[in-house]
């Protein structure tokens, strides 16, 4: 009985840990299906986490915080799109630069706004939704996440937009010859990834920590990309992979206090990510033109 409850608790904890990863991972799917590698997701999550706190801090309304997070993520993604799609700069370089910029910018602004280095004041989290007739509560963001997973799966595989987006990632020249505006499609994919990545970051600060801490994403943007690869660039697959990573993080939290040095426990998500990346190779095939600039 007790072990049953414990394992249910573990699953719930894993689900919560997987939320930020899943949002970012879905963002990665949109961006890379259109042919743009987006390692800026790490920075996008960071500005999202920051934006959520800033928005909530000034309005006391976490929903405004969410909107701020999404718009901050959108802005970083917009820079990535302009630099890597319009100017055709190497997408890894652009993403790396934006990650550095996000680290500097969030610390810079947090020092200006909150007058304190390191972290922001604590903020109100979101009001949890209650299942009718029960005591069960759930974060609205988790509900939104499931909705976004399903919508993304349908949009990418069952709509005209999704078909065109995928065409731009598989063969932009063929898509172009059929009259698809490759540049516009790629922009849309990257910008969607900015909004979703921002949401993922918002969950970190609004739900997990209720505070913004410098560099609080600690590589989650990259773990999310590994999840996307493991999930073979599909929304459902990405969610499953991110749930696995969430499980690793939940395990990590559970292991604390068992006498194992915390540093080794901290390594678990990173080691699991590496193992997964090594394990999927050969079976996961990226969109053919993923990462290659398109030139008409």
């Amino acid at each position: 009985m007790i072990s049953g409850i414990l394992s249910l608790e573990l699953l719930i904890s894993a689900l919560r840990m997987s939320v930020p990863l899943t949002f970012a991972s879905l963002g990665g799917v949109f961006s890379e299906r259109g042919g743009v590698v987006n390692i800026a997701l790490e920075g996008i999550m960071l500005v999202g986490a920051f934006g959520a706190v800033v928005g909530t801090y000034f309005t006391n309304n976490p929903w405004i915080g969410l909107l701020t997070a999404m718009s901050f993520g959108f802005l970083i993604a917009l820079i990535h799109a302009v630099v890597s799609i319009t100017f055709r700069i190497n997408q890894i370089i652009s993403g790396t630069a934006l990650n550095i910029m996000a680290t500097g910018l969030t610390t810079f602004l947090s020092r200006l706004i909150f007058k304190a280095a390191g972290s922001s004041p604590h903020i109100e989290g979101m009001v949890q939704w209650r299942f009718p007739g029960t005591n069960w509560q759930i974060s609205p963001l988790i509900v939104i996440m499931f909705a976004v997973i399903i919508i993304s799966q349908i949009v990418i595989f069952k709509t005209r937009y999704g078909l065109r987006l995928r065409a731009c990632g598989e063969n932009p020249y063929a898509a172009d010859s059929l009259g698809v505006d490759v540049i516009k499609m790629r922009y849309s994919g990257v910008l969607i990834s900015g909004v979703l990545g921002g949401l993922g970051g918002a969950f970190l600060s609004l739900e997990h920590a209720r505070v913004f801490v410098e560099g609080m994403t600690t590589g989650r943007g990259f773990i999310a990309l590994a999840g996307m690869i493991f999930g073979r660039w599909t929304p459902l697959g990405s969610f499953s992979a991110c749930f696995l990573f969430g499980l690793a993080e939940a395990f990590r939290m559970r292991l604390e206090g068992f006498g194992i040095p915390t540093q080794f426990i901290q390594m678990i998500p990173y080691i699991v990510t590496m193992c997964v990346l090594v394990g999927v190779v050969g079976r996961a095939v990226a969109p053919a033109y993923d990462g290659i600039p398109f030139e008409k």
Partner: protein
Amino acid sequence: MIRRILINILAPFLAVLLAFSVGAIVMYILGENPFYVYKILLINSVTSINGWGYVLFNATPLIFSGLAVALAFKGGLFNIGVEGQLYIGAFACAWFGITFNVHPIIGIPMGLIFAMIFGGLWGVIAGYLKARFGAHEVIITIMLNFIAMALTNYLVNNPFKEPGQINPIPQTKELFSGSIIPRVYPLFNKLGINLSPSVPLNYTFFIAIVFCIMIWYLLERTKWGYEIKAVGLNPKASRYGGINPSYIMILVMFLSGALGGLAGVNDVMGYRYRFLDGFSRGTGFTGIAVALLGKSSPIGIVFASILFGVLDRGALAMDVFTNTPRELIRVIQAIIIIFVAIGNEFIFRLLQRLERESE
């Protein structure tokens, strides 16, 4: 040729200028006088001999990390893991220094070799996983950064923590004198250059310059260098040329990781004489900006490192004397990367067009 060189210098110069302009606009919006802030930044770095000493001291690890990123670039790989390699290398040379009490003739080279071997092996993990399984080196090296930081954090907190230390940041005990790289001020004073003994500039800077020359030689004058560049340009074609790309990838990541490991030497063997937890604060990432700005050429990397050394030194002064938080410098660095990359692309296209027209 002259045109090419001119443009190669002009593009980074313009990129830096543009990035500073963006920084100035931000300061102006915040109600600061940008000229005042930049004046403060320069006065404390390049207007005195001691200022220059600090600048070159700051530039030293950046030369190594810039070389590390550049070498990987040449081989077609993105080594975003320099930060992790730096920590592993720094800890390795610190371990040698606190364990073996030897003459400097042995101690200093062995410290360097330890940093190189362990940093290199840390890099090889990513190289091997890429060559053998095709695993994405960017994500792998980032994961390795976090693992390296956690590992060294464990080592310096537990088995190697200095007994009875009062410093709130954990550190190892002090290195034996045989592994300490001396400061340069005695030499400079003899030469009539009035450098204060408090300036931490040490001989690691000259070691960095020697490595620049060695890397230039490796890339431009040896078979390995040719093969590295061939794989970087086109791994498939290089295979037909009789090169084994997997072997070269692992080699490149070893060499790049070794340079990354050396980036930790300046602080450990040349400044603090111990390993301090989390001392680097992004030197490995700044290496990416340095390599891009220096166009992956060793001489370019030296100049780019000096520029970033000025910024680092100036950032401290900015914090003290102005209301602009120093993180603005980090934002400016990121903008420099983007502008340089855009500039490179434009010039590449411009040259292509000019060459086509002249044919």
